[in-house]
């Protein structure tokens, strides 16, 4: 454990932050730009995981295990969210024969 922490700290913290920000931004752009609901889901997962990574990094650098516990919780929540989200997508696909979110525009004024 001590060993792995030391290995983690070999890479400076700024790198982690930059990498995670990039990952998060890719996720955001994916959410904004894509019409395929499945890809949007994947982008959301990307954002969640970038946050997880950052939490783990901070946890390692501050010697505080709380961040890692958070990561586990987020992973559990994300798993549940994916299960529900995919179920929703299946239902949407059955009714519209498409998972293009731009076709889901019946709920308006």
């Amino acid at each position: 454990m001590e060993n792995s922490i030391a290995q983690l700290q070999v890479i400076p913290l700024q790198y982690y932050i930059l990498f995670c920000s990039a990952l998060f931004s890719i996720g955001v752009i994916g959410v904004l730009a894509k019409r395929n609901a499945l890809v949007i889901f994947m982008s959301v997962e990307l954002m969640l995981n970038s946050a997880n990574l950052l939490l783990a990094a901070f946890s390692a650098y501050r010697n505080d295990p709380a961040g890692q516990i958070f990561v586990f919780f987020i992973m559990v929540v994300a798993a549940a969210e994916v299960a529900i989200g995919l179920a929703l997508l299946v239902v949407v696909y059955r009714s519209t024969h498409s998972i293009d979110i731009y076709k889901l525009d019946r709920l308006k004024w």
Partner: protein
Amino acid sequence: MQLISILLLVFPLLGFLTIGLFQRQMNRQLSGILASGVIFINLVLSSFLFRYITTSHQVLEVSLFDWIKFADISIPFALTIDRLSALMLMIVNGVGLLIHVYSIGYMKYDESVNRFFAYLNLFILFMLILVLGSDYLMLFIGWEGVGLSSYLLIGFWYKDHANNNAAKKAFIMNRIGDLGFLLGIFLLFSTFKTLSISEIAEIASLMPSGNITLTIITLFLFVGAMGKSAQIPLFTWLPDAMAGPTPVSALIHAATMVTAGIYLIARSGVLFVLSPLTMNIILVVGAVTALVGGLIAIYQNDIKKILAYSTVSQLGFLFMALGLGSFSGAMFHLTTHAFFKALLFLAAGSVIHALSGEQDIRKMGGLRSKIPFTFALMVVGTIAISGIPPFAGFFSKEVILTAAYEHGMAMGVFATFVSLLTTIYMFRLLFVVFFKPASKDFKPAHSVHESPKVMLYPMAILAILSIVAGFVQLPKLFSETQGFDNFLTPVFAKANGLQTVSEHALSVQTEWLILLIPMFIIALLVFYSYNRFVNSKELTPATGIQKVLADKFYFDDIYDFLIVKPIGFLSDFFRQTVDQSIINGFVNAVGNGTLFVGKRLRLLQTGNVGFYLVIMVFCVIAILFFNIIL
């Protein structure tokens, strides 16, 4: 004795509840008998109390329970029976009983006769509370209660809108007076820290005469009395109150309720005696009312209106007596007035009954032979009220006139003049209704018929009382013992002791003169009225000053112009402009604005998921920036 005084209140309450709650189920004959029976029991009880109070020379205090009690305020629900309330008990229950019995006949064919008797019993209940209450708050309950019963009974025939208006008018004008009374009570409490009448009299008797607080209190109380007892400027409700059934006019608006103001002032005699200013105002108001009421009565054509203005005038006369400090004189005249005015009203009711509801005296005439008993009773009443000896009115008026002459010659002459007005309007009424040849253009629905015995007997009893009641106290000329004065001496002793009037006793010659000259003038007036009203075929339309009198000095029109119209205008303004435009406009604008904004804002709900996502992301970023900046 304690129990009896409580039962006095219980019986009318029971009568009211029984008849009132079961009015739909109850037999029409039964309700009248029940109501009268209740009052009869009350009269018997009152007689016991009266005897007890008179023989035992003490005041009966009955405390039922603590009514209001917190901090240093303690107002018990208590009754006091002294000689004054005992006297009022006899009047209220006695006259009340006779009028209840009379109503059985008068209201026989009315469809809601049960409701009528329920209200009458309610009235008696509140009148007794008013008379028996031992503090001002109790008095106020009774005061409001009789006002309520009066309202209900004036508007008894509520299907005719004019009656409702008359009822409302009476209620609202009384409300003005009641406000004064209420303010007076507040002031009394803040000054004396108690509302008990006897305690207040005790404390006040030590205060200096002309004390400012006392003056203000008494003025407020007098405003209350003005409303209830129909004094100028609050008298216009009383003539309108004649819209109610005639027994009501007799009981409430002639004999009992309207004398509540006199009772109030006599009760608080000590306070009033210590406020010479108020006494003078009472004297002036009473004098003006007596004069105006009497003058108007001469030119009225409605038989009940004549009697109503006569009541106004007599009440003014009573206030004059109070203003002169002659409390027992006022009470004496109040008593006899209750008898003969009730008699006159009942006789008038009998005339109206005989003519199937006709009230205009111009259409009457020649009734002497058709309804002889009513005629005889009316004659007794007329003689009694005109102050012709040896009927009751003579003796009681004499007491007041003597007090007026002792006050000053001008006052005396004025009082005599006012009392002579009575002769004119009463004999006019008598001659036009009974002597004048029957008017041709009037055909009653049924043939003219004498009233049934159930109506005649109560009137006969009242007539006997109107004849003999005066002998309780003969004028000072004839008798040394002043029976009525002595009877009430314990009640008014304190007030009379405080009076500082420099009364110069009248010489025997003057007393004879003030006794005989009015008699002579009355004889002349009767003779004049006979010629004037019996022989003329039709009553000529009023002209000039007569028209002013016939139109009641335009009091109603002035009030209409000064108060009713502006308030109506203001109400219209508030309803149409303020309520409809401003308040309603504001509320509508809020609604419309919300709708408008909603209409615009809902366009944001495009239903496009991608759009929502963009907005969400931008908002998150915006919040982030906000947090950084702030």
